[in-house]
C-alpha cells in the first residue's frame, strides 16, 4: 500500500520538477515557480502519508534499508526546500533540488519495500528514533546546501568567465547563494551533531560501547568533522569559491559513504544488516 502512495508522491515530484525546469528555461512565467512549489508541497504531504502507512505496515523497519532511508531523506529534503523557499526568494533553486529529489527517490519506487523479518524490539527506543531522524535530516540539509553550492559554482563561472548567458540571468547573486550555503551548512551541522550524540547513546545502550570502530561511525565522524571545519572556516571569514567547493566535497563524501556502506554487505553493524550480523548482541 505504502509503495502505491509513494509512487503518487513521486509523480507529484515529477510534475514539480517539470514545472521548475520549465520555469528555469522560461523565467518570464513566474506562475510556473508557484505551481512547482505547490506540487512539491502536495507531493511532500503525500510522501508523508506514504511514510506513515509504511510505518504501520512494516513497523518502521524500512528506514534501515537503503531505499527506505533514502526515501526518508528525500522527504526531508523536500520539506527543507519548502521551508527555505518560504524565507528566500530563490525559485531557481527548485530546478536544482527537485531533479535531485526525483532521482534519489526512483530506486525506492521499485521492488518490495521493508524487511518484515526484522522487528528488533530492543531498537524501539526514543533515542534511536531521534538518531535516525536527525541523521537523515542533517543529510537532507546538506543536500540542499549542495544544491545551492552547485548553483554558486555555476554562477561563479558565468560571472568570472564574462559569458553572461542564460544561466547568468537566471541564477541569483553570488552573495545570496554564498549566504544560503553557509546557513544551511551551519544548520545541518547542528542537526548532525544531535544525530551523533543520539547515536552514541543508542550504541552505548545496545552495543554496550559508544565507539566500536564501525565504518559507519568512522565516516559519520569524518563527515561531522568536515562540516565542523566548514562552520569554523566561515567563522574565520572564509567566503566564496573555496567554501562552495568544500561544501560540494562534503556532500559527495556523505552520499559516497552512505551508498558504499549499504552496497558492501556486512561492513557495518548499522541499518538492515544489524540483526543478521549481530543477533546475539541484540539480547540484553
Amino acid at each position, binding site marked *: 500500500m505504502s509503495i502505491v502512495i509513494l509512487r503518487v508522491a513521486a509523480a507529484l515530484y515529477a510534475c514539480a520538477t517539470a514545472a521548475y525546469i520549465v520555469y528555469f528555461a522560461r523565467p*518570464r512565467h513566474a506562475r510556473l515557480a508557484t505551481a512547482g512549489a505547490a506540487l512539491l508541497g502536495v507531493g511532500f504531504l503525500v510522501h508523508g502519508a506514504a511514510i506513515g502507512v509504511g510505518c504501520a505496515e512494516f513497523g518502521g523497519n524500512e528506514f534501515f534499508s537503503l531505499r527506505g532511508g533514502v526515501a526518508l531523506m528525500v522527504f526531508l529534503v523536500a520539506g527543507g526546500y519548502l521551508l527555505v523557499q518560504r524565507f528566500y526568494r530563490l525559485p531557481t533553486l527548485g530546478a536544482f533540488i527537485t531533479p535531485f529529489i526525483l532521482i534519489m527517490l526512483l530506486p525506492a519506487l521499485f521492488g518490495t519495500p521493508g524487511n518484515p523479518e526484522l522487528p528488533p524490539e530492543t531498537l524501539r527506543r526514543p533515542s534511536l528514533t531521534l538518531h535516525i531522524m536527525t541523521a537523515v535530516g542533517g543529510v537532507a540539509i546538506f543536500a540542499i546546501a549542495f544544491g545551492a553550492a552547485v548553483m554558486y559554482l555555476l554562477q561563479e563561472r558565468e*560571472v568570472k568567465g*564574462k559569458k*553572461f548567458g542564460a544561466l547568468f540571468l537566471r541564477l541569483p547573486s*553570488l552573495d545570496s547563494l554564498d549566504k544560503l550555503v553557509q546557513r544551511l551548512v551551519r544548520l545541518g551541522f547542528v542537526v548532525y551533531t544531535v544525530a551523533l550524540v543520539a547515536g552514541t547513546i543508542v550504541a552505548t545502550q545496545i552495543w554496550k560501547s559508544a565507539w566500536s570502530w564501525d565504518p559507519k561511525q568512522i565516516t559519520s565522524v569524518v563527515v561531522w568533522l568536515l562540516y565542523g571545519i566548514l562552520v569554523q572556516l566561515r567563522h*574565520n571569514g*572564509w*567566503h*566564496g569559491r573555496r567554501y562552495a567547493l568544500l561544501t560540494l566535497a562534503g556532500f559527495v563524501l556523505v552520499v559516497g559513504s552512505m551508498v558504499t556502506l549499504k552496497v558492501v554487505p556486512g561492513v557495518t553493524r548499522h541499518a538492515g544488516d544489524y540483526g543478521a550480523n549481530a543477533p546475539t548482541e541484540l539480547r540484553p
Partner: protein
Amino acid sequence: MSAREVFLVGLSHKSAPIDVRERVALTGDALRDAIADLRNADGVHEALVVSTCNRVEVYVQAGDDAAARRFFTSRSPQSGDHLYVKGGVEAVRHLFRVSSSLDSMVLGEQQILGQVKEAYGIASAAQAAGTFFSRLCNRAFATAKRVRTETDIGRGTTSMSQVAVELVEKIFGDLKGRSILLAGAGKMGALSAKALASLGADRILVTNRSPERGAALAEQVNGHFRDWAELQDLLAEADVAIVSTGAPTYVLTREMLAKAMKARRHRSICLIDLAVPRNVDPACAELSDVYAYDVDDMQNVVQSTHEARRGEALRAEAIVEAEVMAFARERETRAALPVLVHLRRRAEAIARQEAERTLARVGAKLDDRGRRSVEAMAQAIVNKLLHPPTARLKEAAASGDGALAGAVAELFGIPAADPGPRDAPATAAAGREAAPASADRGDTEQPARAGGPLERQPTR
C-alpha cells in the same frame, strides 16, 4: 473604417536631424495649445500629438492630412522635407510600433510607452482624443505590453554604467553595508559610481593621485576622499572598485590584489576598469573570487544586448502585425453594424405597421391573446428572415470584407454612411441621414450599443 481616416504626419530621429526636431518639439502648455488648434482645424475630428526628444508625430482622425502637415510647416518650413505621412492601417501600425519601442533609437527602451501614454493623456484632457483614439491608444498600449511580456526585447543592458550595475548585482545582490571605491577622476568612473550607489552602497570612497581633484570628485559623488597611498588598504575595504585614471600602466597589479584578497578572506571583489589603456592587470582575474571587467567586456555586453534585441524585434513585429490586423478587423465589424441597425429598424417598422393594420381590421374579433399572437408572428417573421443575413454580414465584416455591407445597403436602399465605401465623404453621410451611427463623435460607440439587442434577438 469610416470615411474619416486616421492620418499620421511626423518626423523622427530617423528622418530629421536634431535642429529640425527641436524646432517642432513641444511640451507643456505649448503642446496643449497646439493640440487645441489641431482639434479646431477644419475637418479634424480627433487629434493626438506624440512629442519626445526623438520624434514629433501628429495623429489625426480627419478627412485628409492637411491640418497635420500645417502643424509642422507652420513651425518650421524646412521640416516639410523630413516628414513622413501615413494613412489608415499604415498609421495604426506606426503607432503600435512606436509604442512597442520598435521604432526607437535604442530598440526596446522602456520610456517611449510612458511618453505615448502621456501624449494620450494630454490629448484626452484637451478633448482632442475621443472614442477613436481611446480605442486606438488602448490597443497600442496593450500591444506594447504584449511585446514586452512575450518577447525579450526589453531584456539586457544598453549602457556601460547599467552593465556595471547588473554585474555588481549578480555578485553582491545589493550593496547594502558595502562600499564602493572610485580610483581616478575619469568622467565615466563618476557616472558608474553614481549608478552603483543606487544599489544602496553605504559609502563611496574616492582616491586620486592629485588630492585636489580627488576631493572635488568626492564632493561630487557624495563620497569620502582617501589618500592615494592608501590604495592597498582600500582594496581590502571596498567591495567594488571602479578604476579610471589617466595612468598609462596598471594601477592595480596581481600582487596587490592577492594581498588584498588575503586580507578580505576571499570575500568577493568586483573590479571595473574603465580606463584605456587599462589600469587593472588582467592577471588579477585569475585570482579566486576576484571579478574583473574592462571596457571591452562591458561593451560586449551592450553589443550582445543590441544583437539579442534585434532578434527579438522580429517576434515583436509579428505581434504588432497581429494586433494591427485585429484592430482593423474590429473597425470593419463596427463599420458593418450600422447597416444591420438600419436593416433591422426598417424591417421592424414594417412589421409593426402591418401588425397594426391587421389588428385595426380584425382586432375587434380577437381577444388579448390573439392580438399578442399577431404581433409576435410579425416579429418572428422579421427575426427569422433577418437571422441569416445578420450572421453573414457580421462574419464578412469580421473577416475584413466590407463589400457585402455595401451590397446590403445598396439592395435595401439604406444610406451608405459609415458602412459604405471608405472614400464616401463623412459630411455627406451625416447630411443624408442623421442616424446616431454617423452623426456625432461617438460614431463607433453607438452602433455597438444599438447592436446589442441585435445580437440577442436572433437566438430567441
